[in-house]
């Protein structure tokens, strides 16, 4: 094999904060041959995107390459002049950003942005490039390829925009494309379509690619080899199958292990027992538009009910109805067989205490100006009437329960905690009310996998100890598998299917449940191939049309 297409050596990158330069990347090497796809994975803060941009010789404001070289086809992009770099960018190296909606200029039509690159780089003229664009749209299985390019970005859905951006990156037939988390912002069912079309087109044109993601299962489908990063350092690199089968480093092993946590099944509910929470035929509306239609389900003592669905399916709205923030238009809520006032303002202290909440974004869930002691102490004082030493003892006990050292954390502010610790404080605040029922709203989706696993284990432990019931709102089916006893699947404000977890994960199920379940990527590198074969390529196209 001759020289690789892209050769990165000793790359060090620094970022500016508080008037000093701090290291972000501490010396990374990377080789990429023509037509090869490398997956960069790591948790947030690993420096994946920074490396991705640096392989184009580009850094964002306040970031600089301090050492090392990025040699693309014989040209060192670190030292090349601005004009030389411009001649390569877009023509031989292209970029696909995470948010297609924000990365298309809202003032121009898609096709005009598509043809801009080829015309500027004198690869072809506008008319030819336009025809080629339509052809690419067709290959990427966009609906109405002849017509869709003549729309403005805001007139096209997210999944379609992401494919249009891939087409734009392909416009000059580059040798290398950098994909920066292209499917992270998409729902699972949309993600499949985009993944399949990206992979096909990269294969068709024999393009080399750097695929950046935090999702192991996704990278397993896309990459020939995988490089694992941690806080700006390379952990290890190997070809995909080897990496999945035998990771050598402990960090990689721990990443892989997350997928295996699953709590044992609990005995099924005794028929005739009163559920802790009953949602009875709830219909709710924002303004005059109904967003929930006749939703009913029960949550029994000591059990976890996972409410699953894609964005806009009405999961969080259901939670708002239960807590009384959004009084239902029809139907009602029962706690232990007693009907609750619909509006939270008309519930008494004891009724409010019954249902507690844990939020998705721990950052906005904790008052940044209150210490941990104050945050947890307030419900202790408010509901249980404890003061002084008794209150302090109770808060300490709660901190012990969430596995944080009381003396160390009592006086800290939320800004001095990590994301996982903040989420634990959120849990402690809910526990302080001594509730029987807790709503967990996407509690792990903002966290890195390892941290998320810790939270799930903690929640499981607390449930066993205290007999809590959980309503677990999530879009992540791996989480559902690991923690739930029952599953409620929602789509467009309607309950599509509900039942015991074991039943839900064994066919046959409702077609939507089927689509949702089968769309969740698995760690098997052959998973996407198998799935596509199973569904048939046309099926995916139909799904795309269906989503419009």
């Amino acid at each position, binding site marked *: 094999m001759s020289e690789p297409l892209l050769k990165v050596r000793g790359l060090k990158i620094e970022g500016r904060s508080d008037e000093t330069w701090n290291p972000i990347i501490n010396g990374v090497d990377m080789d990429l041959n023509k037509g090869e796809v490398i997956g960069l994975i790591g948790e947030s803060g690993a420096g994946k995107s920074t490396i991705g941009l640096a392989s*184009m010789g*580009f850094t*964002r*404001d306040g970031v600089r390459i301090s050492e090392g070289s990025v040699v693309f086809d014989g040209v060192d992009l670190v030292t090349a002049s601005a004009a030389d*770099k*411009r*001649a*390569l*960018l*877009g*023509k031989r190296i*292209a*970029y696909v*950003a995470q*948010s297609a909606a*924000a*990365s*298309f*200029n*809202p*003032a*121009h039509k898609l096709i005009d942005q598509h043809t*801009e*690159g080829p015309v*500027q*780089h004198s690869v072809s003229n506008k008319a030819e490039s336009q025809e080629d664009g339509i052809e690419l749209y067709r290959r990427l299985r966009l609906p109405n390829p002849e017509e869709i390019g003549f729309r*403005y970005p*805001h*007139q096209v859905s997210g999944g379609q925009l992401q494919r249009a951006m891939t087409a734009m990156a392909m416009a000059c037939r580059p040798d290398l494309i950098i994909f920066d988390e292209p499917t992270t912002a998409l729902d699972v069912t949309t993600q499949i379509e985009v993944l399949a079309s990206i992979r096909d087109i990269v294969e068709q044109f024999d393009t080399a690619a750097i695929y950046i993601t935090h999702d192991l299962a996704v990278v397993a489908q896309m990459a020939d080899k995988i490089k694992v990063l941690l806080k700006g350092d390379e952990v290890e690199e190997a070809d995909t199958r080897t990496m999945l089968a035998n990771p050598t480093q402990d960090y990689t092993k721990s990443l892989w292990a997350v997928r295996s946590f699953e709590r044992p099944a609990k005995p099924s509910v005794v028929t005739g027992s009163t559920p802790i929470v009953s949602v009875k035929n709830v219909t709710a509306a924002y303004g005059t538009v109904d967003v929930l239609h006749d939703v009913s389900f029960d949550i029994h003592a000591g059990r976890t009910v996972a409410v699953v669905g894609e964005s806009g399916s009405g999961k969080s709205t259901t939670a708002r109805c239960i807590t009384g923030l959004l009084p239902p238009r029809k139907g009602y809520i029962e706690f232990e067989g007693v009907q609750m006032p619909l509006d939270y303002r008309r519930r008494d202290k004891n009724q409010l205490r019954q249902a507690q909440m844990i939020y998705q974004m721990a950052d906005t869930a904790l008052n940044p100006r209150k210490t941990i002691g104050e945050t947890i102490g307030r419900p202790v004082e408010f509901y249980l009437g404890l003061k002084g030493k008794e209150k302090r003892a109770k808060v300490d006990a709660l901190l012990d329960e969430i596995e944080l050292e009381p003396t160390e954390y009592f006086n800290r502010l939320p800004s001095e905690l990590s994301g996982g610790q903040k989420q634990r404080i959120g849990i402690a605040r809910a526990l302080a009310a001594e509730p029987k029922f807790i709503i967990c709203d996407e509690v792990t989706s903002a966290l890195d996998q390892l941290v998320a696993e810790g939270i799930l284990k903690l929640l499981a432990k607390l449930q066993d100890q205290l007999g809590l019931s959980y309503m677990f709102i999530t879009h992540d089916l791996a989480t559902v598998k690991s923690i739930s006893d029952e599953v409620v699947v929602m789509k467009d404000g309607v309950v599509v299917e509900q039942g015991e977890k074991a039943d839900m994960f064994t066919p046959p199920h409702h077609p939507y449940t089927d689509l949702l379940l089968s769309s969740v990527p698995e760690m098997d590198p052959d998973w996407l191939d198998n799935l596509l074969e199973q569904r048939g390529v046309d099926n995916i196209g139909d799904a795309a049309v269906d989503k419009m």
Partner: protein
Amino acid sequence: MSGLLRIIVQRLLLGLVTLFVVSIIIFVAVNALPGDFAEAILGQGATEEAVTAIREQLGLNQNAFTRYATWLGGAVRGDLGVPLSQALFAGNFGTTATGTDVITVVDQIIPRLKNTLFLAGVSAAIAVPLAVTLGVLTALYRNSAFDKAMNVSTLSAISSPEFFIAYILILFLAVLNPVFPSLSNIFPGMEFSERLNRTMLPALTLTLAVTAQMMRMTRAAIINLLASPYIEMARLKGLSPMRVIVKHALPNALAPIITVIALNLAFLVTGVVVVEVVFVYPGIGQLFVDSVKIRDIPVVQACCLIFAAVYILLNLTADILSIISNPRLRHPK
């Protein structure tokens, strides 16, 4: 397109309603004068006849609602009443001032309004291109020495009262180096170049005051824009810096820049008052201040209404232009 049109019509109606509400506020404020309007104006020494005459003159023997309706009706027809000085004359000499030689408020205001608009126009003609250019330059070369120097100087300019800038300019451009006259005594029938020459110092004062603010806002808008992912995308497509600016930044920068300009022109309206007094420029601002001092209520009321109308109009223009330049609204789904 009909959606866009509907929004614009809505805004126009809203502007009209606001103007109407503002006229009520002004009317109510004026009617909050202690005791009787006429007595308050004339003071304690006034004769009974004089007070009665004023009352009649101003229609004070009618109820508040009728008076408001009369005033508003007049204002719509372009009749803002008679200045108090005229009414006083009538009150003291027992003649009703309805003769042909009566100078109405409108007669007093119109020529001065024209002068003020001329002054504001000259300032805007210098300030807008200057501010936008400098704003774009500082945004492009942000955090450079040039940007930092501009930041300090614009902050200083914003912080200085208009009369401070005015006297500094007088000191350097009129007293030490006699380039422009320090008194702007312009009159009708003057030659344009002479008129421009005499307007220059007040116009420069206003320009300095407005440019600083406008430049900073333009800079902020452009920096905000340059941080957006589609600009990064355009650069990563290997486009030339010029093309990134002209093709990708400018179409989206139009709306914020237009808003900035209109907002600052609205600010100009206020700034005019002090500057006109410093340079004795015969504009509506000076008339306003003089009338405030002698408590010539009809004139004050009328000036206030005109200032508010211009202010509302400019804000409305900013609003509508930014709606028109928003591609999301221009090309609905």
